[in-house]
């Protein structure tokens, strides 16, 4: 089901919440195969990436190279474990492939490789690069008179990187309203709270000062995500958009939530089972 065939808003939101729940289960499952994964940041971005891929982006199921597709850059490349299942589910490759995650010669490691993963629009892993790459893609769309958009998902600690602040003014200078950047604002980076390590607030004011349109929302509220994505300007607009998605690191698994030790971790069988139970319990109430 896609937004086009959804019967009602409630059905749509239930559908997206279902996808997010499925994705959280995939993150836990793949972390077992992989021997460990970026659990905290994967779980925090799950609702955002579902809303973007299953609601906002213009894609063709099963056709990862369609020229007019919207592009997506996982600038927080360590979120690969929450990204690759979505690409499989879009029909870009067989979900069976995922069962090799992190193994020798697997297409999938902790950070995505565009040469190995169909549908992955850019190899990422070193933080701070994605928005600059997005600027290049968006300029190309402009040059070729195409209306596709570039979505780029950054971590919150990632915006400590200096290159982000080269790309931010470039996007507004070049009038790239075809860029939609999202910050997964889970407030924790590897060592702890971002505001203690290197403060990034006030995020909205900083980006507005660089010439961006900013939405500051609850990144786990599927209704808020859908409403915000509905408000995106046409891609011809001159002003780039930033969505600050306020999230919880480890969201959906209560013993992981807000605890940076789960930034990267492995799970034994018992913990995996416990995590899956939590995910079921934490799922938002059905509307229909």
């Amino acid at each position: 089901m896609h937004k086009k065939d959804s019967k009602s808003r409630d059905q749509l939101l239930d559908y997206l919440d279902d996808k997010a729940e499925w994705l959280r289960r995939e993150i836990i499952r793949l972390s077992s195969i992989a021997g460990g994964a970026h659990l905290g940041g994967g779980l925090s971005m799950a609702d955002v990436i579902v809303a973007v891929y299953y609601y906002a982006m213009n894609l063709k199921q099963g056709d990862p190279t369609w020229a007019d597709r919207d592009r997506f850059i996982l600038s927080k490349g360590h979120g690969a474990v929450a990204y690759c299942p979505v690409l499989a589910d879009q029909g870009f490759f067989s979900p069976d492939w995922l069962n090799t995650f992190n193994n020798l010669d697997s297409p999938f490691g902790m950070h995505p490789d565009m040469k190995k993963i169909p549908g992955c629009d850019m190899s990422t892993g070193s933080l701070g690069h994605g928005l600059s790459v997005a600027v290049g893609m968006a300029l190309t769309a402009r040059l070729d008179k195409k209306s596709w958009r570039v979505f780029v998902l950054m971590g919150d600690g990632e915006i400590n990187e200096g290159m982000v602040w080269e790309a931010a003014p470039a996007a507004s200078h070049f009038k790239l309203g075809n860029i939609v950047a999202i910050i997964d604002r889970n407030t924790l980076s590897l060592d702890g709270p971002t505001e203690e390590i290197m403060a990034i607030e006030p995020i909205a004011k900083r980006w507005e000062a660089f010439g961006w349109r900013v939405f500051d929302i609850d990144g786990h509220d599927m209704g808020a995500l859908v409403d915000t994505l509905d408000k995106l300007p046409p891609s011809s607009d001159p002003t780039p958009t930033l969505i600050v998605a306020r999230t919880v690191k480890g969201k959906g698994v209560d013993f992981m939530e807000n605890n940076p030790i789960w930034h990267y971790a492995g799970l034994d069988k018992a913990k995996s089972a416990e995590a899956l139970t939590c995910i079921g319990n934490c799922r938002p109430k059905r509307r229909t």
Partner: protein
Amino acid sequence: MADDVQKSIVLDFTYTTDTYDQFTQAEIYGKAITKMAEDNKDIVVLTSDMTRSNKTGDFKKTFPERFFNFGIAEANMFAASAGMAVCGKIPFVTTFAVFASLRCAEMIRTDIAYPNLPVRIIATHAGLSQGNGGTTHHSTEDIAILRSMANMTVIVPADSIETGKAVMATATLPGPVYIRIGRALEPMAYPDDNYDYQIGKAVIMRDYGKDAAVIACGVAVKAACDAADELKEKGVKIRVVNMHTIKPLDIDALMKAARDTGKIVTAEEHSIVGGLAGAVSEALTEAGVAVKFKRLGVPDIFSAIGYPDELYARYKINKNGIAETVKDIVS
């Protein structure tokens, strides 16, 4: 002389050696990409507030919609060029060699080389060509850095003629290329552009005999040729190999020179660590070919401040320095 007037096969303008002498390598680069871009609509040019230094003004004037000035933000520019290449463009990205190779090493490695994207990095003002601009602006590590990146082709043209040919030769290359050029009117190594240029194929500039061989790149090629001419008068007969492509290295030309002469001198406007000398010595060692061997370039120190010619003399990559070194190695 009328005989010298030819139609350039690369740039489609009438030239003589004198005409070429009027253009720096960067100016020839600017002309070459403007010419190429007429036929190839995917070519775009990116610069970082260096349009004047990098001589991309012709392109800007002819194709303003395909010209992008990123301001003084090189890292963003290189990563953005990757984004453009992913979407089908062929970006020529131009900045000083020192900034491309050091400040932007990670963007080039991770965003461009790792996905094997067709980005052309035109690194100007390389080596010691910034002279009294000082050590911050000298680029003496870039060959070592760039050639260690998988997928990367590394080219160091000898003069303006070869710069034009090298730029044009990248047209059909699928992966990334680093072309390293100078700043000013470096002397011409070639009498004209009537020679076959192929990426990865060295050019034998002098072949007077088998006393020794100088393997050179960039400005050292002309110096090595002058040294060979002078040495010949004194009865020392050497070969000069223009190793314009550092990667992939022309192993055949190198091995032939090594086996024929048994004495190799490398000469480059770069640290003697890891650049042309590094590539040559790796290849010789792995092949088990023993030669008398001397590296000319900037020793393992930070380069001094001075005019380029003074620095070339200091580090023996001028005619006299190369001639002396060859005399030592053959004695």
